Each structure stands twice: as C-alpha cells, then as structure tokens.
C-alpha cells in the first residue's frame, strides 16, 4: 500500500502544474455565475414482477443527474418539479415517469437486451435503440469472470467482429493481439484504445484493472470515424466505473489462480536423439555407416538409464519448468456519493509468478483509481479521474525467448545437472534450468503509469439543450529497465579423465555487466466540445462540435557498464573504469495532433435514425500541405418494429435495419519520412598509429517521400438486428472495407541495381508510400436466447465472424508469377512448395521431378508448373495466413437459486501457422517428428528424414513447404466460471450485502489438430513462452 501511496503522490504532483492554472480559471469563472434552481428530493421504489430491482439507473431527463436503486429497489434523487425521471436497467424495459412528489412507485417489465441500454460511442452515448453503428459491448462484470489478469485476453469469444490472438503467456507480456474484423491493411493493424474519452491513453487496455471497468465498447464500422486518422483499425472505448448516489458500497475480491502451460511440445528422448545424431552423420557421410556418433551399446545406455552421468535422458522442459505456478489478485473498491459528490475509489493488486523452477520471473501490479464527480451547481459539473499503477516486471537476465529456445534446443542426451549437482553447459553454454534463475543476474523492469483527466461540463441553461464539455488529460509513464548480468559457472564432464571442467558464462568478459535505461512518456490531450441536444415534438436532435489536440513526448536514456570489479555492486558508478567499459545513449520523440470534430444525430420518434460525423485531423507525421485529413461518416437506421403496421406482429419485439458508411484513417507510421534521413552509425573504425577508434560516419537511412499522407479506409456496414419472442435476439451484419493509400514500403518492385536496397532486419531505406490497396469484407452474426423459468435463468448465445481480405494492390516485382502474386489473395499468406508426401525409395525419386541429390526420406515437392524441375516457380501461395478468417464464440450462462455458471468458448478456423522447429545438430526434435521420421530403419515414416539444420535443410528452410504449415483451427474453452452466492441469514449475520465464491478457469481445454504447440502461437520456430491455462478460486464480497 505504501508503494501505491507513493505512486499516487509522485504521479499526481508533477504533471498537474501545467494544466492546473487554466482549469482553476475555468472553475472560478463558472463558480462566479452560479444560479440555483429549485430542486426537491424525490424518493421512490422500483419493482418488477419478482420483487424490488436493485441497480436501476434513475436519470432526470435532459440532465446528467442520476441515482441508482439500492437492494430494496429504493432511490433518492434531486429533481426539479415536473421533471421526468427515466428508469433504465439492462434487464428491463426503460420507463419514464413525471415527478409526482412524495414516494414514487415504478414497476418495470422484463425485456432482454433492453433497447434502452445506454451504449458508449465516440465522445457521447446513445441508447441501443437509436444506435446506427456496429458496436459490440461487454460489461466489466463479465470481464472479471476471466481469471486471466490481462484485459485483452478476457474479450475472446465474447462478441463478433473482434479477433483476438493470445501469442504468449509470459507474466508481464501475456496480452492478446486484437484486430477488428481481421487484417485489413499491410500496414499497422493496431486498434485505437480510448479510455474515458482519451484517445490513445498511455497505458492502454491490457493492464487496466478489470474490476474498474464499467464497460468496453468496440466500434467496428464507420461509427469509429469520429476518431478520424486513428480509427481505421477500429476503436475500443473503455469506460471506467463511477460512483452513484447512495450509501457507500465496499466491494472486495480475492482470487488465487493456478497457472500452467496450455501445451508444451514433447521432445525426443535421449535414445531417440542419439539415434537421430547417428542418422544425421550418416546422411553427411554415408560411407561412415550408421554409428558415427553413438554405438548401439551407447544408445542402449541412454535407453536404460544405467549410466546417468554419461548417458542421461533429460527432459529439459520438466527440469526447467514447474507444473504450475501461482497468481493472486486482490481488489478493494468503495463507491457511493451524495447528490453533489459521487466517488469510486479502488485499489488492486496482481501478482503472477513465472513458470520457471527457482525462477526469477515475476509480475506484480499495484493499481489505484479515483473517479470523482462533483455537481458544483445544477449546471456545472466537474469530474476528476485519477488512476495509476505500478507494473513491476522481473525477469532472469536471459529473455524468455532465449530460455524457451534453449529448452527446445538442448539435447536430451545432455544432463541439466550432473549427478553431483553441478549444472551442465546445456546447449552452447545455455542451460535453461540455470538461465531461468537469478544465477545469471536479474532484469528488473518497473514501470509506472499515471492517468489524470479533469473534466468540466457546463449546461448553458439559457438555451435549452446547449452545453459545453471540456477535458484535459495528462498521461505519464515511466519505465525503468535494469539488467545486471553476472557471470556464473557451468560444467562439462570429461569421462576419459573423470574431470569436471568449468566454463564461465553470463555477464560480459567474465565480469558482471549492467544495462540501465529509462523511458518517460508524457501525453497531454485537451478537448472542448459544444453540445446541443433537444427535441421538437418527435424530432430529436443531438449534436456537438469540438476541438481536440494532443501532444506526445518520449524521452529515453540508457547507459551500460561492463567489467565490474565485483558482482556485488550493481550500480553504474561501480562499473569498469576504462572508456570502452562505458556506453551511454539517448533518444527523444515528439508527436503532435490537432483535430476538429463534429457529430449530428437526428431521429424521428426513434424510428428513423440518422447520424453524421466529421473529423478533421492534422498530424505531425506528415509534411506541411499533406497534414490534414477529412474523415466523414454517415449512418442511418430504420426501426421497423416501431412502424404502426408492425404493431400487430406480436412475436417481433424489436427489429432494426441499419447501415453506415464512412471514411477513416490510419496514420500509424514512422515520423519524418518526408525527409531524406541521415543518421550517425558506429561501424567505421579508423586508426592512427596504435590509437584506434570508431569514427563518426553518416548513413542515409530513409529516402524522402514528400507526398506522404493518410492511409484511408472506406467502411460500409449493413445490419439487421432485433428481438423475437421476447427471448431471442439476433444481429446480422454484412461489412465491407476498402483500404486505399495504404502506407507501405516499396520493396519488391525496385531493382537492386538502382541502389535503392533495403537492409535486412532494420528499417527499410524506402519510405512508406501511399500505394497499397486492400479490400475486405465479411459477415458477423450473433444469435442469443435468454429465458427465466422461475428461479432458473439461463441463456445461450453464439457469435460468428467471417472476415476476408483481398489485396488489390501491393508492391510486387513486375515479373512475379501470376500464381505467386499476393495481389488478389488475402493478406499474410505464405509462399510455399506443396509437399505431397515422402520419397520412400530411389525408385520413387526417379519417377518424379526432384531436387538434385534428393534421397529417400526427402519430401516430395510438387512440380506445380509441370516443367520437370523443382524450382522456385513451383511455390504457391497458401490459402490462409495466421490471422483466422473465421472466428466464433459460444456463451452459455445459467443461474439457479444461489448458483450460477457462465461459459465462453472461443474458436477459430480458416487459419494456418507455419512452424519449423530449430532441430538437427542445432536442436532437439519434437517427438512427433522424431518418432515418425523416415529413416533407413523406418522406411514408412510419415515425417521427412532428419537433417543437420532444419533451417538450411532441403526439407525445411531451404524449400519452405506445406509440410510445416499447420491448420491452426481450434475450439477452446476460454473461460468458465461457476459461482455460489451466499444468501439469507448468513449474509445478514455477516452484515454483508453479498458474498460470492467461485471457481473459474481460462483456456481449460482446446480441441485442435495441431500436435506440438499451442495453436494460438505465431512463432516461426515454435520457441515461445507458452500460453497459460489458469484455474482460479475466488471470493467476492460487498458491504
């Protein structure tokens, strides 16, 4: 807790000095004009057929004054005389009632997926009934049902149109990649995250405390156009919880989870690997025979374990990893308020352990949030949202990718530890069982994020419906990174001399080394909007115009030292003293944006709906003259069920046809591409006599594109949604997107002879140019059923998304073969040879075109163009890439008396993943390959013969082929929660409002054809920290 307080203080103090003066000015000006209107306290009770209803939002119509009913259904609210109160609740139809004075009694009727639910859209809210865009919503209450602490992982399967892929389970880096309706551009596909109105808030989505989230809306279509230049990939709007008028509610929860890998590949055991080594040696020198590495007697020793010192059988994953590890989450919040001040205060703690035995991997997160809303006067409201968190990441000095790479590479024929306890050298001095511990030092990576938003809203009462909203938001983050790498000893045993020889690994130059860096970011966003909302008879208007600007600054600083005299002083000041022992670096980044925005919503009797939006965005990424982009959108809806002719159709409760069209932008490319960029490198060494040094040298790193501007997305959406028979809700969406002016680097079409050649593995020389064009389209469907039979409430819903992209233009070499073109194909496909089988004999080889030197056990590559030779012309594009074209989710929930259960399945199909393990004399083999390999002794093997190095093998990296392309479809039980709510007298004895215990799980099981690794992974060699399966026990209570 002390840490939290310190953080709050540190975070809160600094950035506010900048914006405080103008805000105080605003407050002062508005205070000085207070005018009080007559208000009376209205009380009442909200009932439904089965008793009082808690949690009903009571709003004074036309104002922002709200209250919420308590457990007894009671509410109290300040309202002017003859005001209209609106009662809304998710499970009930909205009701309106004029203030009658005295105690009001309101009865709500049940309505699943009530049309009156308020949905957060860009910069304001709308009723579901009048929503004309495609917006998916998930409530915070559902998010917390996932025991996985990373919010991005809790969304999978919940709704259509949002595709999530969890690529790694490493604590601290365990988020999901999110794409809305699949890939739509060759450029950046990142979704814009807006938290409490701040676009691109620093800190993002993943690390928010799910307990603080009221709801998440995903804008999937042109409705996102209000976010203009950043909206093309979709927008996720996060709304955090706020206090409600009423008695304070104290909520607390505690969860303990048991986390284990969803899947780890089985690797070949020692006797198999020894046999494989012999085969590899045989293929390189057939005359040498089958026992060039190990004799049969030695292989027998590997098999029987009779000599564990010299002939061990090591399961590196088992040696390095625990079966399961723990994670804890604790949260406390207080919410409540009076009519004038409402508050939501919370604090959360998350602690995750890594999977390593004696491991140094840990993630701790401490977070707080304070959302305070104050009604200063009837017309003037001020809100202050403060939130912050500490993210404490700790890792061993070796990265998880190195550790897992070593686990899969290290041979089963090498012990992890010798029988006397000394660690072995693993593979080339990488012993993952030691790398995972703090033996080689630690990497500490603490970070702090602070977000502050001050909002003001003033109702200009002289003109009905006119109001001004403004906010100023400050985001800060501080990330520190300190890696102190210390040398340690590994041993190798020489059986001929019976001597253990040590070797020093880790650190640098056999001494400790230190790397420190600090990266600070500040984002300042200010926004002001003039709103107008009014109704003239059945004509309802809601409009705003606004201005927004933001500025992002990032400064980073790094320093390193080597040759520490002792590993006991891990500080910069204590490192080696030679000039070459010291290195420092730094960088800064500055980005600005300026926007004008407006929106007009009109509807007639909530029957004919029309929305128009426009945003004009300016960005520092682009050169003067190309800076501003215009992003308009239009949408319309027709609530057919509100037509009089539909009133007789009793089984249709609601039916809406809607459509939208708009232009959205994507500006997510590197800065300064409109200039020829020249940077200093440190690669040229010159000498004078014995003095040698790195000379200053300048390289061209980026050619200018003086015309660079926005990437554009035109999005069209047509949808039909409704409710039938009271219980069935449905939504069908057809969507289409045309991406043009895609910012892409010309890579393939420019001949190298021009000298415009892009380097490998770093930023291309060519700038992003507005050249790409991709069309995508697809369908979304959602069907849900909810029912209550007495005390049993149950529901099921399914969602389905089909999203397919088609490249219209991508930079390709002029002479690329038609069937190898990317143009016309979906994004991210693979270019591979078709592997059609395995040559079992020289006879078979003779009968079919093959590579020079093909031998039995090699893959048969299809002679696709039938020219009798296997050449690069025989490669073909794969049908799918590694972003699924089809995703689906199934949600089930039920509650009966005190018990409830909710289940989320998530699945994907039409997806492929290429994985070529790093095997050979450079690494161990998946046992699926090892056990089924073709070999002279196993001429019917279903996997190709083993080779020295898969990456350079004719059966692997040399001729990448479909043998290694897996159908990565899966159906996965993403979340399940089983809960029990304590009721009745026990609860009152405990003086609690509620007490709930539950058992939940994440990634509980998976159905897939992929054999060796988690099908959600995307690593080319399968070497990554595996996704986690979490089984969790929790308790939640409320006072």
């Amino acid at each position, binding site marked *: 807790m002390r840490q939290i307080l310190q953080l709050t203080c540190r975070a809160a103090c600094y950035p506010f000095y900048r914006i405080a003066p103008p*805000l105080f*000015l*605003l407050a002062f*000006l508005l205070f000085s*004009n207070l005018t009080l209107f007559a208000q009376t306290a209205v009380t009442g009770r909200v009932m439904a057929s089965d008793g009082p209803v808690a949690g009903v939002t009571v709003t004074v119509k036309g104002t922002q004054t709200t209250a919420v009913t308590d457990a007894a259904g009671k509410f109290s609210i300040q309202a002017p005389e003859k005001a209209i109160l609106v009662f809304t609740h998710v499970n009930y139809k909205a009701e309106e009632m004029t203030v009658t004075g005295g105690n009001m009694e309101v009865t709500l009727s049940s309505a699943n997926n009530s049309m009156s639910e308020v949905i957060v859209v860009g910069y304001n809210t709308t009723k579901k009934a009048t929503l004309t865009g495609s917006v998916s919503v998930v409530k915070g209450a559902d998010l917390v049902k996932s025991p996985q602490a990373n919010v991005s992982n809790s969304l999978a399967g919940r709704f259509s149109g949002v595709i999530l892929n969890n690529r790694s389970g490493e604590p601290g880096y365990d988020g999901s990649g999110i794409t809305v309706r699949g890939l739509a551009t060759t450029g950046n596909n990142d979704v814009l995250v807006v938290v409490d109105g701040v676009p691109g808030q620093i800190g993002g989505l993943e690390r928010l405390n799910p307990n603080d989230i009221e709801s998440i809306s995903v804008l999937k279509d042109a409705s996102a156009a209000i976010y203009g230049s950043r909206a093309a990939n979709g927008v996720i709007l996060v709304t955090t919880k706020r206090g409600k008028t009423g008695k304070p509610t104290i909520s607390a929860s505690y969860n303990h989870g048991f986390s284990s890998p969803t899947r780890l590949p089985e690797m070949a055991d020692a006797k198999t690997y020894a046999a494989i080594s012999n085969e590899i040696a045989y293929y390189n020198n057939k005359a040498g025979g089958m026992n060039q*590495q190990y004799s049969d007697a030695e292989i027998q020793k590997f098999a029987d374990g009779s000599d564990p010192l010299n002939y061990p059988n090591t399961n590196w994953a088992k040696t390095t990893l625990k079966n399961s590890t723990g994670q804890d989450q604790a949260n406390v919040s207080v919410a409540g308020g009076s009519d004038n001040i409402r508050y939501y205060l919370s604090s959360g703690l998350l602690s995750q352990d890594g999977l390593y035995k004696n491991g140094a991997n840990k993630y701790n997160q401490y977070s707080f949030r304070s959302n305070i809303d104050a009604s200063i006067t009837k017309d003037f409201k001020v809100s202050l949202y403060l939130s912050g968190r500490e993210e404490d990441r700790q890792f061993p000095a070796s990265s998880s990718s190195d550790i897992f790479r070593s686990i899969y590479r290290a*041979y089963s024929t090498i012990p992890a530890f010798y029988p006397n306890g000394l660690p072995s*050298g693993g593979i080339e*001095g990488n012993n993952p069982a030691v790398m995972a511990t703090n033996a080689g030092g630690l990497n500490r990576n603490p970070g702090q994020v602070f977000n502050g938003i001050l909002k003001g809203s003033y109702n*200009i009462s002289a*003109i009905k419906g006119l109001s*001004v909203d*403004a906010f100023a938001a400050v985001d800060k983050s501080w990330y520190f990174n300190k890696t102190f790498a210390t040398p340690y000893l590994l041993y190798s045993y*020489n059986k001929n001399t019976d001597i253990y020889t040590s*070797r020093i*690994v880790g650190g640098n*130059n*056999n001494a400790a080394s230190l790397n420190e860096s600090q990266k600070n970011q500040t984002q300042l966003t*200010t926004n*002001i909007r003039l709103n107008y909302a009014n109704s003239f008879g059945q004509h309802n208007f809601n409009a705003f115009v606004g*201005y927004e*600007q933001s*500025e992002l600054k990032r400064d980073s600083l790094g320093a390193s030292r080597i040759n520490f005299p002792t590993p006991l002083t891990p500080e910069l000041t204590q490192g080696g003293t030679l000039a070459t022992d010291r290195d420092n670096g730094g960088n800064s980044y500055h980005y*600005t944006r300026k926007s004008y925005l407006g929106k007009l919503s009109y509807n007639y009797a909530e029957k004919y709906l029309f929305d128009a939006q426009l945003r004009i965005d*300016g960005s*520092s990424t682009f050169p003067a003259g190309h800076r501003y982009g215009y992003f308009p959108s239009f949408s319309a809806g027709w609530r057919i069920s509100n037509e009089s002719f539909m009133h007789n159709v009793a089984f249709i409760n609601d039916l809406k046809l809607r459509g939208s069209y708009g232009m959205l932008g994507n500006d997510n490319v590197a*800065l*300064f591409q409109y200039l020829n960029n*020249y940077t200093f490198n440190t*690669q*040229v060494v*010159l*000498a*004078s006599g*014995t003095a040698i040094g790195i000379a*200053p040298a*300048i*390289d061209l790193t980026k050619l*200018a594109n003086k015309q660079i501007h926005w990437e554009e997305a035109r999005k069209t959406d047509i949808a039909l949604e409704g409710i039938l028979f009271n219980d069935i809700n449905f939504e069908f969406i057809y969507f289409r997107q045309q991406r043009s002016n895609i910012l892409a680097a*010309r890579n393939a*079409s420019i*001949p*190298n*002879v*021009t*000298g415009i*050649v892009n*380097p*490998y593995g770093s930023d291309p*020389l060519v*700038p992003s*140019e507005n050249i790409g064009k991709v069309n995508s389209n697809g369908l979304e469907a959602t069907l849900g059923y909810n029912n209550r039979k007495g005390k049993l409430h149950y529901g099921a819903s399914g969602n389905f998304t089909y999203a397919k992209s088609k490249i219209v233009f991508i930079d390709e070499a*002029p*002479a690329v073969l038609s069937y190898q073109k990317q143009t016309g194909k979906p994004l991210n496909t693979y270019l591979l040879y078709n592997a059609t089988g395995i040559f079992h004999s020289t006879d078979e080889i003779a009968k079919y075109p093959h590579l020079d*030197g093909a031998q039995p056990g090699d893959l048969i590559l299809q002679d696709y163009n039938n020219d009798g030779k296997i050449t*690069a012309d025989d490669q073909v594009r794969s049908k799918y890439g590694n972003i699924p074209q089809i995703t689906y989710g199934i949600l089930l929930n039920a509650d009966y008396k005190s018990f409830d259960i909710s289940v989320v399945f998530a699945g994907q199909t039409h997806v492929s993943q290429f994985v070529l393990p790093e095997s*050979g*004399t450079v690494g161990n083999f998946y046992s699926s390959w090892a056990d089924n390999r073709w070999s002279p002794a196993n001429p019917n093997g279903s996997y190709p013969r083993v080779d020295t*190095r898969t990456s*350079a093998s004719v059966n692997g990296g040399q001729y990448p082929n479909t043998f290694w392309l897996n159908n990565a479809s899966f159906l996965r039980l993403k979340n399940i929660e089983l809960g029990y709510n304590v009721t009745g007298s026990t609860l009152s004895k405990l003086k609690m409002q509620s007490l709930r215990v539950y058992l939940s799980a994440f990634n509980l099981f998976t159905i897939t054809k992929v054999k060796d690794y988690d099908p959600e992974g995307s690593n080319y060699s399968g070497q990554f920290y595996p996704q986690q399966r979490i089984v969790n026990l929790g308790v939640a209570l409320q006072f």
Partner: protein
Amino acid sequence: MKTIFRNIFYTAFFATAITSCKKDFLTVQPTDRLPQEYILADSSLYEDYVVARYVGIRLQDKEGDGTNPGFGRGFEYAMWSSLTDESIYNNDDNTWLVQKGLLAPENTGIAGTIWGRSYRGIRDCNFAISTIAKVNMSAPRKARLMAELKFIRAFRYHDLIRNYGGVILMGDSAYNLTDNLQDDAFFKRASLKESIDYAVAQLDDAANGLPLNNDDAWLLGRATKGAALALKSRLLLYAASPLYGTGTWQAAVTAAQAVIGLNKYSLYTGGYSNLFLINDNKETIFERLYTKNANHTHLEIANGPNSYGGWGGNLPLQNLVDDYQMNNGKAITDPTSGYDANNPYVGRDNRFYATILYNGATYRGNTIETFTPGGKDSKDGPDNWNTSKTGYYLKKYMNDAYPLQNPWGNAGFQPWIYIRYAEILLNFAEAANEAYGPDVVPPGSTLTARAAVNLIRERPSVGMPDLPAGLSQAQMRTAIQYERRVELAFEEHRFYDVRRWKIADVTENKPAGGVTVIKNGSNFTYATKVALDGRHFETKNYWLPIPRTEIQASNNKIQQNSGY
C-alpha cells in the same frame, strides 16, 4: 443573457488557453537524424558520410554479426572459404547448397548478398560524387574525397564483377524513388571487358587522387594510392585469366609492378600467424579495422574445437591439408618427400601449422585431440555436436589473447585484410610467368616471376625452400597456384582463383575430405573420409546466379548468367 455570453466567452477563452493553438504546433523537428541539406552544408558531416561508405548494408540473417559487412564477406560465421575446397561450415548455414551445386537464383545461400549490397554501395557513393560540387570544402580535399569515393565504388564493382561477370554500370547518378526505376538502361549488362575497363579507369583516377600514406589527416583504414593500384592489379590479373580472357598478362604485370614500384610495401617479417592479428604493418595494403563495440564475429568461439567450448565452424578440409608441401618443398604425393602417412602432420610447410589445427596440435596451452576413442575434441568429448566433421579446426586468424568462452564484445577485433603485398607479388608472378616465363624480368620490373614467389617462400616464419631454377612455364604455373592456395588460404581468394583458372570443375568436384584418427595405445592411425557427401560443381557455377528477386524486379529484363 449577458452572463451567458460571458460564460461562452470565458469557455472559449479557456479552450484557447489550454489548447494554445500554436500555428506551428504540428511542425516537429527531428533530433535523431539529419535532413540532407545539413550533410551538404557542413563539410565535416559530408566527410563523415564519405567515410561511412567503407561499410555496407547487411542483407541476410547471420551476416554482419557485430558490425555491417564491408566488401566481400570477410569475417562472418560461415566464411567464404566454406564455399570452396578450403573448408566446410559445420552447421551448414546456407553454405552446403553451394558446395553441393544447388546454387540457384532462388537459392543463393550466403552468396546472395553481394549483388544488392554492392549496388546500394554504388548509389551511396554516387550521391556523394554527384553532390560534392555543392560542398564548401577546399579543392585538394575535395579531390581526395572524390578519389576515395571512386575507389570505394570501384571496389563495389570489383565485388560484382568477380562474382557475376559483366555487370550493369550505373554511372554517377544517385537514383531516387521519383525516377523511373524500370528504365531499360538499368537492366543492360555491360560486357566483362567493359566492366573491368570501367572499374580500372576509376581506379586510375582514384590512384591519382589518393595519398600514398595514411597519416593523421588520413587515418589508417582509408584507402591510399597503393590500395587503388593493388585492386587494379587484381582486376587486371582476373581480366587476363582463362575464365575472363579479356585482358593481357602484360597489362597485369604492369599493374602489379606499379604497386611494387611504390617501394612502400614489404612482406611482414613478424611471423605469418601474427600478420593477421595486427592492424598496422608494411604488408597490409588495404584492410577493414575493428575495435570494441565495432567488432566482427567472435572467431575463436565460432571456430574453436568443442572441448574448448568452441562451435567448430569453418572446418578445413583434407583437400587443403593434403596440398601443403613438406617443408622440403615437395608435395606429399612425391615418394621422395619424406611424408609419413602415419605421422602426416610432421615436417609440413610452416603455413600449415599457422592455418590448421590438427590432432596433436598445440592450442591455448593444450593439445587438440580429434582422435577416438576418448579424444576431447572428437565426438567423445564434451559438446560433441560441435565436433569437427573433418577432423580439423581453423587456426588462421585466431587470436589466443581473446577469450574463447563467453567472449561477447571482447573479441572480434582482428583486421580483415582486403589486399596485402603477398598477393601483389603473386599477381606479379602469375602474370609475369604467363607473359614472359618464369625467369624473365619483365620490362619496367625488377623481379622475375620466380623471384617474386621466392620472396614469399623464404620469408622468416615460412622458410620454404626457393623454387628451383629452370621450371617450365607450366610448372611455374602450378607452383604459383600452390603458393596462392597456401599463402592466401581463407582470404577469399580460392573461390575466385579456381574459377578464373577454370580448374573449379576439378577442384570443386572433389569430395569434401576429412580425417578419422583412431588411437591405439599411444599410436594413431589416420584414415581419410568424406566429411560431407555431395560436393558438386557445374559449369554454370563459374558465375553466381543473379538473385531471382532481382530478375523479377527488372521484369525479366536483366540477363541471367547462363545455365541458371
């Protein structure tokens, strides 16, 4: 109403205050890069740009480990030698496909990087050449930088010519994205002769403008007059060679003599091994220097024997081992040589010991044991997956002062010598022998071919007997070929020599040989073996294939080398 308007006014004021609509709010100045104008406006920045041209871009994984590549391949994990009969690379790393004759436009292995890197380097030079007039700099300095740029550009062309034959000559323009990059002029390959003539003319210009010596105003590492003349010597030697057949041996003699006649260079006398470990000596004509934080591959761990913790990377072949003469100057195949197959490493050319680690060799205070059973550097030793497939490890270039284990950042400082005087002497000898015979002092020269070779053989630490007088021209040719093979082993000559001599169809079709050493008591028996099956060379392999991506990018307009 008045209050209302006041409120609106204040609100607007507030909005203005917090948003501070600066007119240049969207204009951001870069701080970590320079726009082009600055490079041309500041002569020292311009020179920094010129100096950077010695280093190229990397185009492949495992290339430029440490710092980016310069010319050729230099020190990389898999060295260029592993594409020849000098060595194989233990773990393939895209070298075996070349050894096995599978080189194809779509599969160029480690040989796929020269084309793109060279043309990028040429363009980068052209930018400086075409803008130097705008730079505010003294005329002599300008002339010198111009000469340097022409030298570097010619070196890039040399890299292209010796790998691809006739190349595309790009002139002096630095092309931009706004140019028509599909212009047919980009795709016309000049003849081999035109290509060499162009590069040689550029080197003549460079030699005229470059200083003779490095000094504080022209640091070591930058090209000198000698470097330009030496590269010209190499190119003209190639031009006269059978594969090229476009130049004359006389011209090659003159070019080599031009370097010799500078009287600046001499053979290093501090030991053949040491030559490759020190930066500044009279033998090195042009080199790439490395230092801490700008190092190359950590050679000792990358190539070291398994018991030392090394990875046994570039493994010398029996083919090379067998070619080392006895120290009496006789080939081991000569029955009178005194060669003992049971003691094969005794009494060999001293350069053998400086180049190759073999069973029984002393290394880092220990003895190499590649024998079985039980040899620590054999498959019976630790980390046996790193055991040499050939039974040999590389010794040349290894610096015992650098850490072998855990060397990261603390090794990889040996200079890569692009051209040294011994090569010039051998260029001279070869050309003089072909043009005038072994024992004639060519006009304008001071040496005979034989004398030039003997300078190399008789130098301290090599100490090989002189070539006898009276060799025929053909015998002399063989002697020179031997001398180049041994003297210049692992220095990126063999690959080109066997091609230009057109002997690759013999040398490169020989199996990759290794040795099996069996220990019986205290005796060893040696048996040759095939270290890597499938070594193969075809006529088309005399030149590299132009990468398929490049042919496609040219819309099939660039003429591929024949056979591919």
